[in-house]
């Protein structure tokens, strides 16, 4: 079965190990959410699974083949990545930004419909000819999400595709946060795999089939939200004393009840 896997992956950055022996499977049909404090190694693990940061030990694979064995274009047909913050060096229009995700040689009418659909999905229809660098931060982020969606939906070949999102909802308003997580959910329901880094524990609990909690470069807990989001794990991962409540949809954490604890 298809999967994007990290097998005992360690990642080094600037001479320091930022991910240590992380083992993780991003499976089609599921939304996997990485949580953890700043500097826990979430983005580095996501980068290793995106193929742009080569592990110093262990292996990142797609359907059993090492990510490093894929050509960039071939990899782009199987996974799309929304990095934490994506700059734009020149004043491209929103439409042009969305098209940057399309593979070379896509027939024009297919390209047009894929881009129109992607822009509609992020609520940017009517913004096509606006210059992306002149939009608000949240709108720019949505233009980038549209690019990633266009990349994922162009020229489908029946194989599952993976969506890697590094803090996709940072800077978005509540409505667009929910809409973006809904896009991730729909991608999973359509047979794709999703790996997202989220900072909001409650939205993570809501969006995830599986939560992976990281701290100091290591994965410390893996499982469904109800299993991972416990008082104990929250304290261990975030150094925060809180009581996690459970309501019908799943666990929740009221920040009003949480207190940071001093680290020894």
């Amino acid at each position, binding site marked *: 079965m298809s999967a994007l896997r990290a097998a005992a992956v360690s990642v080094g950055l600037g001479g320091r190990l930022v991910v240590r022996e992380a083992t993780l499977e991003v499976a089609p049909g599921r939304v996997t959410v990485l949580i953890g404090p700043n500097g826990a190694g979430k983005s580095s693990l996501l980068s290793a699974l995106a193929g*742009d940061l080569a592990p110093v030990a262990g292996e990142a694979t797609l359907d059993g083949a090492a990510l490093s064995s894929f050509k*960039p274009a071939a*990899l782009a047909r199987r996974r799309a*990545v929304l990095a934490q913050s994506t*700059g*734009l*060096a*020149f004043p491209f229009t929103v439409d042009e930004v969305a098209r940057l995700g399309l593979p*070379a040689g896509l027939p024009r009418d297919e390209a047009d419909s894929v881009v129109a659909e992607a822009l509609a999905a992020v609520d940017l229809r009517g913004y096509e000819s606006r210059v992306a660098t002149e939009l608000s931060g949240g709108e720019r982020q949505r233009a980038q999400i549209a690019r990633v969606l266009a990349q994922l939906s162009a020229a489908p070949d029946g194989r599952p595709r993976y969506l890697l999102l590094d803090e996709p909802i940072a800077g978005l308003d509540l409505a667009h946060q929910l809409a973006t997580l809904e896009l991730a959910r729909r991608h999973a329901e359509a047979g794709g795999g999703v790996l997202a880094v989220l900072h909001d524990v409650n939205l993570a609990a809501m969006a995830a089939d599986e939560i992976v909690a990281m701290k100091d470069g290591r994965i410390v807990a893996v499982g469904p939200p109800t299993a991972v989001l416990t008082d104990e794990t929250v304290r261990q991962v975030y150094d925060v004393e809180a009581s996690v409540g459970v309501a019908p949809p799943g666990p929740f954490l009221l920040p009003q009840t949480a207190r940071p604890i001093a680290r020894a």
Partner: protein
Amino acid sequence: MTRSLGVIGAAALLAVAAAASLAIGPVQIGPQRIIEVAAAAYQAGGRAGLPPDMIRDAAILADIRAPRTLVGAMVGAAMALAGAVMQGMFRNPLADPGLVGVSSGAALAAVCWIVLGEGVIAHLSPGAAALGLPIAAFFGGLLTTLLLARIAMRDGRTEIAVMLLAGVALGALASAGTGLLVFMARDDQLRTFLFWTLGSLGGATWTKAWLAAPFVLALIAAAPFLARGLDAVALGERAAFHAGTDVERLKRVAVIGVAAATAAAVASAGAIGFVGLAAPHLVRLAIGPAHRALLPASALLGAALLLLSDVAARTVAAPAELPIGVVTAAFGAPFFLWLLMRRRGRMVG
């Protein structure tokens, strides 16, 4: 739509500039006369069979103006294209082979070849000796570009301040080398240094045109393959890789192409500044940053700008001829300052 119009407009401007470059000089030869002479020469099967009143004009056109126009167009196109590719690669509209020392590096290598290579040149056939100059300039430009990329790029990000300062330093270093060679040079070699530092199309010959052509054509031929990747690199190198661009290969092709085109420009016309900066920027203002249209339009506009500058250089102080670098700098430097002021708010970080 706007994009095609932009490319067509730039091509039209180049046609006008080329006509002006052929027509204007100590002897004015109007466009109509040019066509008459060309048609007559074609019918007569060569210059010798022409009526006497046409022979002089035919000689001026074929021996002096046509190679000059051709070299000027190639140099302008090469510099503008090199500027556009470099700006895309460094993700910064302020990159320009002249500004960041690549031209100076190429010029230094060319001057080295002339002064220090004399011993070698003596043993070569004239053709090989002539070819040595652009090749030396190519490696000079390549080395400077590689050094610059190495210094200014970190984790796929270019630090603007570092890039400009490193470029200034590399340019100064190359100029110091050139200065040292000036010190060592004989009087007859000294005059050619003015040519290298300020640039001129005055020495244009058919031989120079044929020598420059392959280097310029190398970048022109590579341009369509670079366009897509350069668009993606605007997102940053990492995001470009995520979107399927082979960033490493793109960088290699871009760096070699820029060095080749800069070398051709420098070897045939000296270090002429600002065309590589101004042409792509003007095109971006007119039709946006998409490289599919930006690259060809920049090449056409750069060729047109350089030919017009050359026309100005040889008419302003006629019968004397200004170095063309003086003209491009007179227009280009204020433009660059304006650009800096406009971008001042966004220069940080």
